[in-house]
């Protein structure tokens, strides 16, 4: 007979993000057939009782388990890949998977340096025999224009901002958001031009002017506007964006996509994570096994150059 504590341990081994490999080894290798039977009977999450009375594996659980076991693999692969190939693959996957994933495209296009983004575009050519812009053609939605513009940018990275221009462009955005049809924002040519061509320094100055002039932040004014808000955050306040994404990943009811963001953000941003310290504390409790070890060690070593 399996002890209740064993049943609980089995469930727990699969109940975080990642898998508690050690715990599984110790439970399963020490269980005989009878133990295992009662493990199956006792585990409410993984097994259901079949018409014929045996403890059958729950289909949806298998899917979840697959994801859980793959997390460590994905973290390793993502970590090993050349950053250009990594970013190219992230973008390609996001395009394929659809609108819910477009924020990844925004994330890569807006949080990498200009040369890193160029590198990703080059890698994309090698890997997929098309340019990113070409593949974005497949997107029929209104996000396409913004996404094409963002991935095509080669932003100036020097200092020197024309504050007058930043202020007047803040006004252009304000009017686009507040006076125009909010639904048409993604079609607003001037807004897209500003967001896609100006340097990050300039946009951060614009962000400041916006708050000063209108009493709310540009991000606040874009609440609910999906990738437009993501764009502004990634360009102007990336730490806010990443914090938001990480917290969504460790929430109680986080879906698989949100959880996957953990790997992506921690592996790609580890230098910034150490400096900015925006990893939620919850991560310590909710991560499991080798996956946890890997991610925590990534963060810890983040400032190794």
């Amino acid at each position: 007979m399996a002890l209740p504590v064993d049943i609980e341990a089995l469930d727990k081994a699969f109940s975080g993000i990642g898998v508690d490999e050690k715990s599984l080894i110790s439970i399963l290798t020490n269980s005989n057939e009878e133990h295992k039977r009662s493990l199956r009977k006792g585990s409410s999450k993984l097994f259901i009782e079949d018409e014929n009375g045996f403890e059958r594996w729950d289909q949806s659980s298998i899917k979840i388990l697959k994801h859980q076991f793959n997390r460590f693999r994905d973290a390793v692969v993502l970590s090993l890949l050349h950053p250009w190939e990594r970013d190219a693959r992230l973008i390609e996957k996001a395009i394929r998977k659809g609108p819910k994933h477009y924020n990844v495209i925004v994330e890569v296009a807006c949080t990498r340096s200009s040369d890193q983004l160029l590198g990703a575009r080059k890698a994309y050519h090698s890997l997929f025999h098309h340019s990113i812009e070409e593949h974005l053609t497949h997107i029929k939605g209104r996000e396409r224009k913004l996404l094409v513009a963002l991935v095509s940018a080669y932003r100036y990275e020097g200092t020197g901002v024309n504050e007058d221009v930043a202020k007047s462009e803040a006004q252009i955005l304000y009017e686009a958001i507040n006076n125009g049809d909010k639904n048409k924002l993604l079609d607003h040519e001037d807004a897209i031009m500003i967001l896609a061509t100006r340097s990050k320094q300039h946009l951060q100055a614009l962000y400041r002017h916006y708050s000063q002039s209108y009493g709310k932040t540009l991000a606040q004014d874009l609440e609910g506007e999906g990738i437009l808000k993501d764009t502004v955050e990634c360009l102007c306040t990336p730490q806010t964006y990443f914090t938001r994404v990480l917290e969504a990943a460790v929430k109680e009811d986080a879906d698989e996509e949100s959880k996957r963001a953990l790997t992506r953000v921690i592996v790609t941003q580890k230098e910034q994570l150490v400096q900015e310290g925006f990893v939620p504390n919850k991560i310590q409790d909710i991560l499991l096994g080798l996956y946890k070890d890997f991610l925590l060690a990534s963060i810890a070593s983040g400032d190794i150059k």
Partner: protein
Amino acid sequence: MATLIAPEHTSAVEDAEKLQKACKGWGTDEKAIISVLGHRNAVQRKQIRLAYEDLYQEDLIKRLESELSGDFEKAVYRWILDPADRDAVLANVAIKKLSPDHHVIVEISCTRSPEELLVVRRAYQARYKHSLEEDVAAHTKGDTRKLLVALVSAFRYDGEEINTRVANSEAKILHEAVKDKEFNHEEIIRILSTRSKMQLMATFNRYRDDHGTTITKNLEGDSGDEFLKTLRPTIRCLNDPKKYFEKVLRNSIRRVGTDEDALTRVIVTRAEKDLKDVKELYYKRNSVPLDQAVAKDTTGDYKALLLTLLGKED
């Protein structure tokens, strides 16, 4: 094929000394300048500039700028620059004009290879502290702006693969747009700024096969439309750049009063690339050798430099 005649082995130090001698004292020995610089490729010219800086603690370009003048000076200045830097300067000049020269921006973004265009963008940032696309966006508007920004931002796939299904459907889209004269600018911009050059050629060929006439012929006529004025050179440059350059040269010489800017620009930017092929096209089209036409229309040192770059044996 290039028209530039440059010896394989040169001494940058000797060249720098010759140039210094040419600029020393009263007056300038323009012939010496032409005989050196007019026979050096981009790598050699760069080495000369470095050697000159090393020997005389002076920027050769600045020196030449102060010694020379007029069309000759402009031509020498453009010639001596690194190709990417040169393109950046040309683009900036085109953008900052009161009435921007859109076709120059089109020319640079569509006739350079994808890699070359990237280097131009980098050179532009280094010089002007703005990105190329930023400045283009700030100085243009409407659909013309959309097209130009898309063209300068493009990083086209450089491969040979062609998708005939796509060529077919996009030839149709382009034809719809052209035929109705009610251009669906979004689709045109998307196709022209994202597809690889090979893919676009397949599309243009398909267009010609399906409709018996080239797309450029179908675009002729209406001159009023701003967008059209930019669209035409775009398609020409993407479809057949050498033919495009021949036309620019022909127009620059034909005009009452030569368009020196255009003449200089094409000769200087293509002398190390495909000016020879353009010359052949020119002769076929005009029954007059390009050298002859240029000689007739220009004078002095400016003429001498152009002819040298066109491959005139000394």
